[in-house]
């Protein structure tokens, strides 16, 4: 069924590496899927754009170089304002995350393109990466002092037995909320778009009245497309801001 709104999320193999055949080898079979293809396209696009646009190292930037510089300063200011100067050592990490999510989201807006971030495993892996960095760096920098993260300052002692479990649960739910937020936004947006676009087709097959009626879902689709572009950029921003704030917790656990 051509209008199946779920089909766009299906992962199909493009080619496989290793594994001589189906269910035969003991070795690994590595499938290069449409998802992997778009990850590669995303990474290549980002790198090519940033590296080529700054090739001239112009004192007075051209348009493309200016765009690269704006992206750099945007993320740099974000990291500096939420995680402080010390957080700038994570700047390449946050920048990579931001650009990866942003460009993957935006590529997803192109018809027939696969949306990498519409798969929970991808967003969850990114979120776990963030939380792992927070935990590992937090303990490396502060030792056991990192556990002060769970003890808010200025809270009277008798409330602590209640507050500490809440803090722990909220910390543990961070990777889930971080990943589900991005995943659900992309998934829901694409399904909605597809459903409304499908209405256009099915309505216009009903004749003249249907075509007239199809203008409504068409207008809706146009509006939703604009909204989805906004959501794409916004979710990348939210992901990066939350990452910066979590990194700030790793650097300054006693808040």
């Amino acid at each position: 069924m051509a209008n199946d709104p779920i089909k766009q999320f299906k992962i199909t193999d493009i080619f496989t590496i290793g594994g001589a055949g189906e269910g035969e080898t003991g070795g690994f079979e590595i499938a290069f899927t449409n998802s992997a293809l778009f990850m590669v396209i995303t990474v290549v696009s980002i790198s090519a754009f940033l590296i080529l646009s700054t090739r001239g190292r112009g004192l007075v930037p051209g348009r493309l170089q200016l765009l690269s510089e704006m992206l750099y300063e945007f993320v740099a200011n974000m990291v500096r304002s939420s995680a402080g100067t010390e957080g700038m050592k994570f700047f390449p990490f946050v920048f990579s995350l931001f650009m990866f999510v942003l460009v993957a989201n935006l590529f997803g807006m192109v018809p027939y393109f696969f949306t990498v971030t519409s798969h929970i495993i991808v967003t969850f892996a990114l979120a776990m990466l963030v939380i792992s960095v927070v935990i590992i760096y937090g303990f490396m920098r502060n030792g056991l002092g990192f556990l002060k993260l769970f003890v808010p300052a200025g809270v009277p002692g008798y409330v602590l037995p209640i507050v500490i479990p809440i803090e722990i649960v909220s910390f543990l739910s961070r990777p889930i909320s971080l990943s589900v937020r991005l995943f659900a936004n992309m998934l829901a947006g694409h399904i909605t778009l597809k459903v409304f676009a499908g209405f256009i087709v099915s309505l216009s097959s009903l004749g003249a009245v249907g075509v007239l009626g199809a203008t409504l879902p068409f207008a809706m689709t146009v509006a939703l497309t604009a909204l989805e572009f906004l959501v794409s950029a916004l979710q990348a921003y939210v992901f990066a801001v939350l990452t910066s704030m979590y990194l700030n917790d790793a650097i300054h656990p006693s808040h």
Partner: protein
Amino acid sequence: MASSTNSAHEAATGVFPPFDPSTFGSQLLWLALTFAALYILMSKVALPRIGEILEVRRDRIEGDLAEAERLKQKTDQAIKSYEAELADAKQKAHNIAEETRDSIRADLEKKRAKVEADLAKKMAAAENDIRETKEAAMGHVEEIASDTALAIVTNIVGRTAQKATKDAVAKVVKG
């Protein structure tokens, strides 16, 4: 394509693709590879380069601003020294005028003093002369008077009583 994969199979059976665990391994692997590549490219190539561009530009702007500030200070200094010079020159001109006026006035004063002193001296001399003349005249009065008196007395009395006349005259004159 011969790759009748698990994912295709399971999607057909109705598993929601994002929750299909059979695709997780492949996605995680490629995500790890691509994200690692992105991170390395960003942290080693792209970001240092952009950072350097921005740094160079900031340095340049700061340098230019400092240079402008330096030039401005120089200009201010030049203006200040010009003004000081001007004030100095004005002061000097004023001084010269004042001096000239003073010297002329002093000269005038001196000349006038000299003339006045001269006049005073002359006046004093004249007064002296007058007094001397007067004194001399007054000195002669007694003699003339006694002579006159003697002559009168001689004429009247017929004889001369020189001594008595003189005494009487002197008495009158003194009296």
